[in-house]
C-alpha cells in the first residue's frame, strides 16, 4: 500500500511529471494568447490598408487632372470605378463647409439639378456604425477646380470609405 521509504518522492509515471506541467501550461497559454492577439492586429491593419488603398484609387480616379469641367466629367470618372468593397461615398463640397460624416448626402454640391456624388452603396454612415468596435472608416479630402460657365471655383473632393 505504501511506497518503500527510498521511493517516497516517486508519485507514479504521470505524478512525477506534474511539476513540469506548470511551466508547460504557462508557456502554452502565453503563446496562444499572444498568437491570437497578433492575428487580430494583423487582420485589423490589413483592413485598414485595404480601405486606404481603396480611398487612394477612388480619389485618384475622381480627381483626374484636378479639373472637373462638368457633371459628365465627374460621372464618367465615377462610372469607371469598379470598387465593391469597402463601401464608399465621395462627392464635391464647398471648401468652407466642414465634413459631417453623418450628413454627407446633404452637403454634396448641387449645381442646377446635378448632384456631384459618387457611391457604391445606398447605405449611409450612422453613429452606431462609427462607434461599433470593429468599425474601420477612412476619410480623405482633396482640393479641386470645378468649372461652371467658364469660371473656375475651388471646391473639395471628399472620399469616405468604410467596412461593415
Amino acid at each position, binding site marked *: 500500500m505504501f511506497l518503500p521509504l527510498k521511493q517516497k*518522492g*516517486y508519485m507514479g509515471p504521470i505524478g512525477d511529471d506534474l511539476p513540469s506541467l506548470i511551466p508547460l501550461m*504557462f508557456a502554452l497559454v*502565453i503563446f496562444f494568447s499572444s498568437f491570437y492577439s497578433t492575428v487580430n*492586429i494583423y487582420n485589423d*491593419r490589413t483592413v485598414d*490598408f485595404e480601405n486606404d488603398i481603396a480611398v487612394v484609387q477612388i*480619389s485618384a480616379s475622381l480627381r483626374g487632372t*484636378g479639373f472637373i469641367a462638368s457633371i459628365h466629367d465627374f460621372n464618367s470618372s465615377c462610372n469607371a470605378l469598379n470598387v465593391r468593397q469597402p463601401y464608399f461615398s465621395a462627392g464635391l463640397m464647398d471648401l468652407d463647409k466642414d465634413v459631417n460624416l453623418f450628413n454627407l448626402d446633404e452637403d454634396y454640391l448641387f449645381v442646377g439639378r446635378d448632384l456631384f456624388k459618387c457611391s457604391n452603396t445606398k447605405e449611409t454612415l450612422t453613429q452606431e456604425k462609427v462607434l461599433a468596435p470593429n468599425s474601420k472608416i477612412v476619410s480623405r479630402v482633396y482640393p479641386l477646380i470645378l468649372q461652371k460657365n467658364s469660371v473656375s471655383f*475651388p471646391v473639395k473632393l471628399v472620399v469616405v470609405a468604410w467596412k461593415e
Partner: protein
Amino acid sequence: MERIAGKKINSKGQAAITDALFFLMVVMSLVAFLFFFTSQYGRTVGEYSNSKYGSDYASSALKTILYSSFARDGLPLCDSEKEGCSQEVDYLIAAVKEDYADDKNINYFKENLTDSVKKVMQPVRNSFDYMLFIRVDAGAFEFPYFFLSRKEFTSTYDGVFVSGVEAKERNYYCNSSQASSFNQAKLDNFIVFIGPKGQSVSSISLPLAESSQPHEGIIQLVLWTSKDFNAEEQAFKNLDCKEIVAEEK
C-alpha cells in the same frame, strides 16, 4: 540496487522540469518575435500612405491655386451672368504675373494670392503647416512671394499631466527685408528642419515689362505635420519672416 533505482527516478523528474523550462524559453522567444512583428507590421505602409496623402494634397492644392478664377473688378464670382456679379474674370496666376512684370515684385495681388492659398489649405489647416513661395532664377535666386502658415502651441501643466493644449495659427510673409542675405541654402535648411510630408512644384514663367525675355522660376508648396517650435528657432529665424498682424482681427 533500490537506491540506484530511486536516484534514476528522481533524475527523471528533474529532467522533465528542465525540459519544460527549455520549452518555456523557446515559447518566450517566439512570443517576443510575435510582439516585434506586431509592432512593426504595416508601419512603413502607414507612413507611406500618410506621406502619399501629403504629396497628393500638395499637388492638388497647387493646381487649384494656379487655376482658380479671380474677379479683376472686385465683384463676387458667379456661375451665371447675374447683375452684381463680376464681368472681368481671369486666372489669379495671370494677375500675379502681371503684378510681377512692372517692378519684379508681387505687391498689388499679394493679398488675393494669400487668401486663395489659405482657402485651399483650409481642409487640412488642423493637421498641416505649410508654405508657398515663388522663386525666380534671375541671376541670384529671388523670392517675390513667400507665405508661411504655422501653428504655435501653448499648454498648461496640471501636476504631472499636460492639459489645455491650444494651437494658434500664425501667418507670415518671409524674406520680408529685401536687404537680408536670404538664400536657397537657408530655405533648404528649414525644409530639412521641418521634415516635409508633401511637396509640389510647378514651373512658372514671369514676364517683364522692360524686356521680352521672361524670368523663369518655380512655384512651390510644402506641407509638414505641425511642429512645435518657437519664433526664435534659428532655422525659422533665417527665413526672415514677418507676422501678418491684420490676420489676428
